[in-house]
């Protein structure tokens, strides 16, 4: 099953990216280097910014929920899990365009939309981790005068570090491969997310080989994150 749905298409893509008219070549990777290397960095940057934004919002919110369980807020925090990517992109574009058109089409706008969408996943993972921290540690800290902020910063976050790292890797990988939100929000010029470049090479030029090379590069980036994830799991 794994071979049919994953390994075979992957092998076909890698092969397509390394051949031209039946001859082996790295020309498609040269095209990626020449035209899209800035987009590779841009994609990493947007994904990193989106991940940072997600955690900036999710850690305080989940910390607060760990200390004072409140169902309605927890439900709202998880709502983005059920909202499709395209809808998030469209909604943010519609909401931002009239008031902040510069932000709507910028890297910051894309990072913001990605962060909003991934907030639900982050909440799910972080709440689980924070709730796994023994209440005794929190009580002990409270006894010596620690407030809510200190409890989150000095108890919950350090004790959930492995879970936070895994969540970060999963969210970062998902953002690297995002397509719908950049498609809905980004401008037709300037740096682009890698999946947009894949779509452009194939959709506009019918250039399956360079599209495959871009896909392999994106796969390698995600692989780096996945390896870190696997290490965490086996550590």
């Amino acid at each position, binding site marked *: 099953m794994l071979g049919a749905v994953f390994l075979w298409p992957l092998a076909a893509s890698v092969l397509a990216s390394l051949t031209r008219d039946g001859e082996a070549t790295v020309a498609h990777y040269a095209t990626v280097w*020449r*035209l899209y290397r*800035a987009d590779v960095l841009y994609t990493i940057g947007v994904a990193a910014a989106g991940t940072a934004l997600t955690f900036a919002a999710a850690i305080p919110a989940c910390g607060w929920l760990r200390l004072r369980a409140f169902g309605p807020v927890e439900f709202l925090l998880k709502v983005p899990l059920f909202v499709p990517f395209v809808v998030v992109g469209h909604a943010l*574009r519609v909401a931002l*365009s*009239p008031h902040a*058109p510069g932000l709507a*089409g910028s890297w910051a706008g894309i990072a913001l939309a990605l962060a909003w969408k991934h907030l639900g996943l982050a909440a799910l993972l972080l709440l689980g981790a924070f709730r796994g921290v023994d209440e005794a540690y929190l009580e002990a800290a409270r006894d010596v005068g620690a407030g809510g902020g200190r409890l989150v910063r000095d108890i919950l976050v350090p004790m959930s570090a492995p879970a936070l790292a895994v969540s970060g890797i999963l969210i970062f990988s998902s953002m690297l491969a995002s397509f719908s939100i950049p498609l*809905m*929000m*980004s*401008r*037709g*010029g*300037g*740096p*682009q997310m890698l999946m*947009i470049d894949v*779509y*452009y090479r*194939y*959709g*506009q*030029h*019918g250039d399956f080989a360079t599209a495959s090379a871009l896909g392999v590069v994106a796969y390698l980036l995600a692989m780096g994150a996945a390896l870190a994830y696997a290490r965490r799991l086996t550590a």
Partner: protein
Amino acid sequence: MTIRLLILLLALAVPATAAGRLNVAIGADVNVVEVHKTVLGPGFAQTSRDTDLNVVGTGTGEPASRAIYTKLKAQADTGRKPWDIDVALVSMAVASQMVKEGLLYRYVPQLKNAGLVKGAEVKEAFGVAVDGYVVPMFQNQIAIAYNPARVAAPPRSFEDIVAWARANPGKFGYNGIKGGVSGVGFTMGWVYWKTGQYKALTQGPFDKTKEGAIREAVTALREFNKTALITNGNAGTLDALNRGEIAMGVVWIDQLVAWKNEGRMDATITPVLPAPGLPIYPLYLVVPREAASRDLAVRYIDYVATPEVQARAIVEKFGWYPGVDPDKVLPLVSARSRELLFKGVSAEDLARYSRQMPIKEYHDLITLAYEEIVR
């Protein structure tokens, strides 16, 4: 793309060999799919009893046409016959590629309306001889749209556009080359204007020494872009015009008309076709080489190419330019529809400034230069 192909596969899963079944794949927006489902299909069924029309839309833009190409190419490569698409509506680029690869049936000479299929765009597309293989369903013209309340004098030339954009930074918008074909068309029009090489770029033969002039033109476009707003796609330009974010932009006339008809667009936004012109980019009706219902497919396209049908379904109902000989279609259209059709862009403007896309080698050279120089 995978999702588009899967939808296409499921929709066409019923064998096309059933008597009178016609599988029609539309590589265009839902409104074009609806025309086939609700107007052209039922109209054709009246003239050809027992016809079961199965219309499938594959999405919008080039990828929609590419999904159709990918499916037919796969069937050709695997040697499967017959193929399960009988009629396809595809872009100029994809149609030319399909002709080049021998995937299409040369059917136009069999049409009763063959004499109405006229124009340079039905003879050659991207340097490929498509004569006999294609009938434009309607003509799709790229134009400049402007808001009369904010643009005192509509631009009559590219010089006017540059001067206006310089005086109004950020108020001219187009979608670059990654946001849709209107931006690609504007880029081609810009290169025609700057190089003065329209004939050579559209008729070939390919001459690599023209690369310098092309790159110089694209470098000038990079400077122009500093005064322009690069929008998010064809719809993004219309949206920005509608919201007032920009006051002038590059649009598809058919899309502008469709949005106005649906009440989604400020009715005062007006198109204009500046000198030396912008490309036309028709969607072609084609018949795959091994279509199961080839004869029925030819009869269906013949029906669509009938002047009465073109007048009623294409011009009157949707406000699109006719795909076949306008001299035969327009006399059948009401005076009001004619006025709406040519508001801003007259028939004379179309005749003088409607341009072809360049041959494929120059097209690729120009888009590559854009990616390298403008980004």
